[in-house]
Structures are given as structure tokens and as C-alpha cells.
């Protein structure tokens, strides 16, 4: 199977391609691994059947893998400090095992599996629309990306045509959610840096985006809005005018707050050279999204593996090279500005056919489909098999699953007080990793 500029080689696991392995082992066998070869602009998807927990057991070290090293460090006075699953400052259930002899972090192992709702197995046998209700709840703050990737894979599996306007609605939802997530991530980092005034105003911007989503889609997190047979509410011309107007205000406000934040020495100094990730280690650990782009690798699915409507847009996306927490935040800030441009282009080119044809009642045909979406925190892949309109098999690789090893690598030799900056700068979500 080939999809727009990237190769998908599906099948059981083959030999490890040294240094190119992005692994996400999961407790069920919904494991997907994506091998990204950035030199040749090529990705290979594999579906290894390796049991085990995704986080503790990561890649069996080609070379020195950061997690393997973390487990081995021993010596006088070193101990392992368990942090979680209910931990201060991490608003989700998850755990970290920190190997340390005091202040310095010798190694850190993220441990998941506390929030496993078995979404991928619980949807088996459900009609695509019902399965979508669970898939969007894989991670509520990333719902638009998850459900768009899931639907695209299911539609490609069945060979079902999708109206262009529907693709525009999905892109609209994804870009709005990217704005929300990046704004929130910036606020969280500001919070960790004790930027109290700025913090409140950036958070206020996040709430404005949620309200905008609520007023257009009827739901603050857009649940149910992108599904076949979803709410009757459609994005009409009046909605788009309202959106354009509101986004203009949000963009202007963000620009002011962003330049104020970057003028703040405490904010910038605290982030600079915190939790660094070199380009080599970003690639080797399989990092994706803003994390990868902050380390100097310009891979963004919207550019490198675009699907409509991104194929028709002019997208210019930012990169940074320093690889530290500041670079990851700079990438997010610039992506907010880029998303606002993308949204403008979407409104300018919005397809005129206002009537959206209802999906055909009878299933078109059974099959397997793969789709890839650039979620706010990185490259998201869904692999879905559909027969008789029902989901028969579902596997996915979430951006968080791909980024945990990079986070662990960046924390090596850090001090524990860096933890919150580092964690927030990666945009990791336990919910989508556990599934």
C-alpha cells in the first residue's frame, strides 16, 4: 500500500532497522511501529506482535538505548523514586520511575497502563459511527485528530467517497484543536516558570477556543461532530464568518501575549537548555511532531504526507534546532500563527457544495485502510479493517506513544526541578498511550 509520498509496508515485525525504530509496545496486541527514514522521506509501518507494557519495555537497545541505561545505573546511594500514579502537577494518571541519588536524574522510566480503557479492542464489532464515539474519547483534547484519522482509515478501507466539505470540516476541527493544545501547553510551561500574570491570560485564550468550538459544533470538545450521522449542526457560511471574526481576535491577542512571554527573561532562561534532545537522539528515539521539529527534523504530515484539503493549501511550518524545552515551545508558538493562516485559507477555499450527502446506507466493501494525521503533538497513524460496516480490527500509533522514549532521553542527567518544564514541553498524554 502506498499513500501520498510515504510507503506503508504492513506485516509482521521484521528485523530492527538500526536507529530508525519508533516503538510503542502496548499491553494488548494493538501495537503498531512506524519506521521513519527521514533521509529518504519514507515511512514503513509494521505491526509487531510483541506482548508487554509499552512504557517500561521499550526498544531492545540498538546501541545504547536511554531506557535500558536508566534501568542499569546503580551505585552507592542511588535509589528509584516512584512518582505517581496520582502525582502533583501531572493532571493525569500515570507513573514515573526516577533513578536518582538525590537531585540529579540518572534515568527516568515513564510507566503507563493506569488508564487502559481498551478502546481498540472494545470497538471491535461496532458500526464505524459507534466506534468513532469511543475513538474520539481516546484522548479528549486530541479528539479531532483521532477521529479524523480513524474515519479516513475506515473510509479508505471501505472505498467510501467523502464529500470535500466534510474534509474541510475535519481540517477545521483539527486546526482549532491544535490552537487549543498549543495555547494550553504554553500556559502550562508558563505555569511551571511561575509566570503568573501571563499564565492566566494564556489560559483565558484556551477557554475562548473551547467556547468557540462549543458554539460552532455544539460541544466544547467537538465530540460527535465529525462522525457519520453526527449532530445535525453543520458549519455553514454564518458559522465561518463568526469563526473568522473570533479567530482574528484570538490571533491578535495571542501575538501580544506571545511577544510579552518571549520578552520575559525568567521564562526564556528557565526553558533554555532544559531537557535537551539532539537531532540524532530525536530520530533514534522515534520522536514525532513539535518534539521532532524542535530538534531540527522538518517532518510534518501536513507537508510530507498531506491528504485533502492540506494538499491544496500553502503551508509553511516552523522548525527549530536547539532541541530544548524553549525550542519545543517556540515551535508551538509559531505553529499557532501557522494554523491561523491555514484556517484563513480553509475559509477562503471552502467548497461551495453546501449539501453534504449522507453516507451510503449499505457498506461499500470490506477492506483495510491506513491513515495518517498530524495531531497537535505529532504523527498519528490508524490502521483499520472494516467489513459489513463494522470494525473488525483496529490498531493505532499515538504521538505520545512515540514521544515517551524521547522524553526519557531528554531527562537523563537533568535535575528533578526540570521535570515539569520538560514534561509540559513534550505534550504527552497518558490517555492516548494507554488507549
Amino acid at each position: 500500500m502506498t499513500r501520498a509520498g510515504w510507503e506503508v509496508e504492513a506485516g509482521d515485525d521484521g528485523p530492527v532497522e538500526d536507529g530508525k525504530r519508533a516503538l510503542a509496545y502496548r499491553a494488548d496486541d494493538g501495537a503498531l511501529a512506524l519506521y521513519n527514514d527521514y533521509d529518504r522521506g519514507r515511512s514503513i509501518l509494521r505491526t509487531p506482535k510483541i506482548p508487554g507494557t509499552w512504557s517500561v519495555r521499550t526498544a531492545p537497545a540498538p546501541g545504547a538505548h536511554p531506557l535500558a541505561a536508566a534501568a542499569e545505573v546503580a551505585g552507592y546511594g542511588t535509589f528509584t523514586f516512584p512518582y505517581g500514579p496520582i502525582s502533583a502537577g501531572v493532571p493525569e494518571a500515570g507513573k514515573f520511575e526516577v533513578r536518582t541519588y538525590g537531585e540529579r536524574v540518572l534515568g527516568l522510566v515513564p510507566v503507563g497502563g493506569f488508564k487502559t480503557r481498551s478502546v481498540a479492542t472494545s470497538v471491535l464489532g461496532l458500526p464505524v459511527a459507534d466506534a468513532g464515539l469511543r475513538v474520539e474519547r481516546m484522548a479528549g483534547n486530541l479528539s479531532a485528530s483521532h477521529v479524523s484519522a480513524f474515519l479516513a482509515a475506515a473510509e479508505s478501507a471501505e472505498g467510501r467517497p467523502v464529500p470535500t466539505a466534510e474534509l474541510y470540516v475535519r481540517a477545521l476541527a483539527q486546526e482549532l484543536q491544535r490552537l487549543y493544545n498549543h495555547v494550553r501547553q504554553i500556559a502550562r510551561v508558563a505555569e511551571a516558570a511561575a509566570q503568573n500574570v501571563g499564565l492566566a491570560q494564556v489560559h483565558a485564550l484556551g477557554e475562548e477556543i473551547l467556547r468557540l468550538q462549543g458554539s460552532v459544533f455544539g460541544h466544547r470538545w467537538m465530540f460527535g461532530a465529525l462522525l457519520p450521522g453526527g449532530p445535525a449542526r453543520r458549519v455553514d457560511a454564518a458559522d465561518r464568518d463568526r469563526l473568522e471574526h473570533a479567530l482574528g481576535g484570538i490571533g491578535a491577542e495571542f501575538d501580544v501575549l506571545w511577544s510579552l512571554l518571549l520578552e520575559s527573561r525568567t521564562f526564556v532562561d528557565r526553558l533554555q537548555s532544559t531537557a535537551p534532545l539532539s537531532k540524532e537522539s530525536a530520530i533514534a528515539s522515534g520522536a514525532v511532531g513539535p518534539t521532532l521539529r524542535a530538534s531540527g527534523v522538518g517532518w510534518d504530515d501536513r507537508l510530507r504526507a498531506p491528504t485533502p484539503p492540506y494538499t491544496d493549501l500553502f503551508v509553511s511550518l516552523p522548525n527549530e534546532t536547539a532541541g530544548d524545552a524553549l525550542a519545543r515551545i517556540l515551535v508551538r508558538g509559531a505553529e499557532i500563527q501557522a494554523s491561523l493562516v491555514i484556517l484563513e485559507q480553509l475559509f477562503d477555499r471552502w467548497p461551495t457544495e453546501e449539501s453534504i450527502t449522507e453516507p451510503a446506507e449499505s457498506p461499500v466493501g470490506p477492506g483495510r485502510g491506513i491513515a495518517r494525521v498530524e495531531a497537535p503533538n505529532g504523527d498519528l497513524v490508524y490502521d483499520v479493517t472494516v467489513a459489513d460496516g463494522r470494525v473488525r480490527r483496529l490498531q493505532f500509533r499515538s504521538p505520545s506513544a512515540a514521544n515517551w522514549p524521547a522524553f526519557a532521553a531528554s531527562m537523563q542527567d537533568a535535575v528533578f526541578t526540570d521535570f515539569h518544564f520538560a514534561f509540559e514541553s513534550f505534550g504527552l498524554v497518558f490517555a492516548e498511550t494507554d488507549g
Partner: protein
Amino acid sequence: MFGWLGRSAARGILTTRYPDAPPTPSEAPVSAHAPEPRPAVPISPNAVAGCPVRAIAPDGVDQGRCIRCARCLAQGFEFSGPVALATAKRPDRPEGPGAILGGAAPLARLGRSIHVFLVDVGSCNACNLEVLSIAHPQYDASRLGIFFTNSPRHADVLLVVGVPTEAMVEPLRRAYDAIPAPKAVVATGACAIRGGVFEGTPGLRSGVDEIVPVDLYVPGCPPPPVAVLDALLRLIGRERTEAPT
């Protein structure tokens, strides 16, 4: 610094007037309301069969199960009623469809100010973020004496989000035990009430009250920040008294 202050002044007052005034449409979008059959429209078998979480029965809607998917809108339902707020009864069907709408008696059992400990036992993250947003300028929970704490030892309220996984049963019990009495537990969101869209998945508990006693349930998937505020205000006897519109 002056830049920031100037910015605050330029933005003016963002904070909601809730609970002194009812929530505005922008604070409570469609999904903040409870679905109910349109007046004089009987609940059809199609509505019952079409609800993905079996929240609709011929005699009423189980608001605790409802995930606000809006599918029943095509089956004679509407979302036009009052905002769905917290209730002290698990909003299962025996109480009837109206039982949760502002009907619960105020508990007024904690002091004038409370500290809230948020525990996630298996959420999708949206509930966590909605709960945390009550601290943001538009809601500013601290003006009402509501604060978050990072330690159960300093907490009065255990606010639980998500569908309990086996792995979180013990941590949840321990968090509950660590909170000094008097304490209150708030189950927030369809998942915490009875499993939400994941109800019946092997390995998951059907609701937080299978593990710890619950004082208030907040329906919604996720409940909007005003509903979370309402629940916490009930605990200190400061909730909005007249039925919200």
C-alpha cells in the same frame, strides 16, 4: 511587567457572573444541557434503539449514562432544557428524567472555602481539563472560595474523573483514606458515574461509587465548567438556588 498589567486592563472583566446569574449560552453550549423528549412527543422505539449508551428507556432518560452525542435529536429529542447540574442521587432511571436538574438539596457540610484534590482514574483527559478550567479567568473559582490542592492531606473534596480501571482502584482508595474528615466525593462525568461510553468493557468498574462513597454526581461527557462549579458550590451551600434557565 507593565505589559502584562496593561494587557489585563485592556481585556477587562472576563469572569462569569455565575452563580449570581444563569450561565450564558457561550458558557453552556448545547452539550451542557440534558437531552429530553420534545413536549408531547412520546419516546419512540427508534430513540431507545439509537442511543449508543442505552441511556434512553421508554419511560425516560438516564442522564448519568448520556454522553451528549446528540443522536437522539433526530428522534424527537431536544437539548433545550436547563443546564444539567450536579445531583446527590446517582442519576439512574428510577428517579425519572427530571431528577437531576437542579433538584438536589445543598449539602452545606463543608466550610466556606474548600480545597479540591483531583484524581483521574481512567479519563480521556477532557474531564480533567474541564475541571481545571474552573481556575481560569473566565470562572475564577478562587473568588468563590474554591482552590485546588496537590495533596490529599490538605483536601476537603475528592473530585474523581474517568472510568475506574483495576490499576486505579487501590490508588483511589488510598487517596480517599488520606483526606481528613469531613470530606466529600464528587464523581464528575459519565465515565465516573457509571462508565460512560466504556460501560461494560472488561477490566473497568461501572462507576466510582463501586470503590468509594460518592456525595455528588455531575453528568456530562465532559460536564462543562459551570456544572463542576455548581457541584463544588453545593458542598459549601452557595449554589445558585433558582432553577437555571
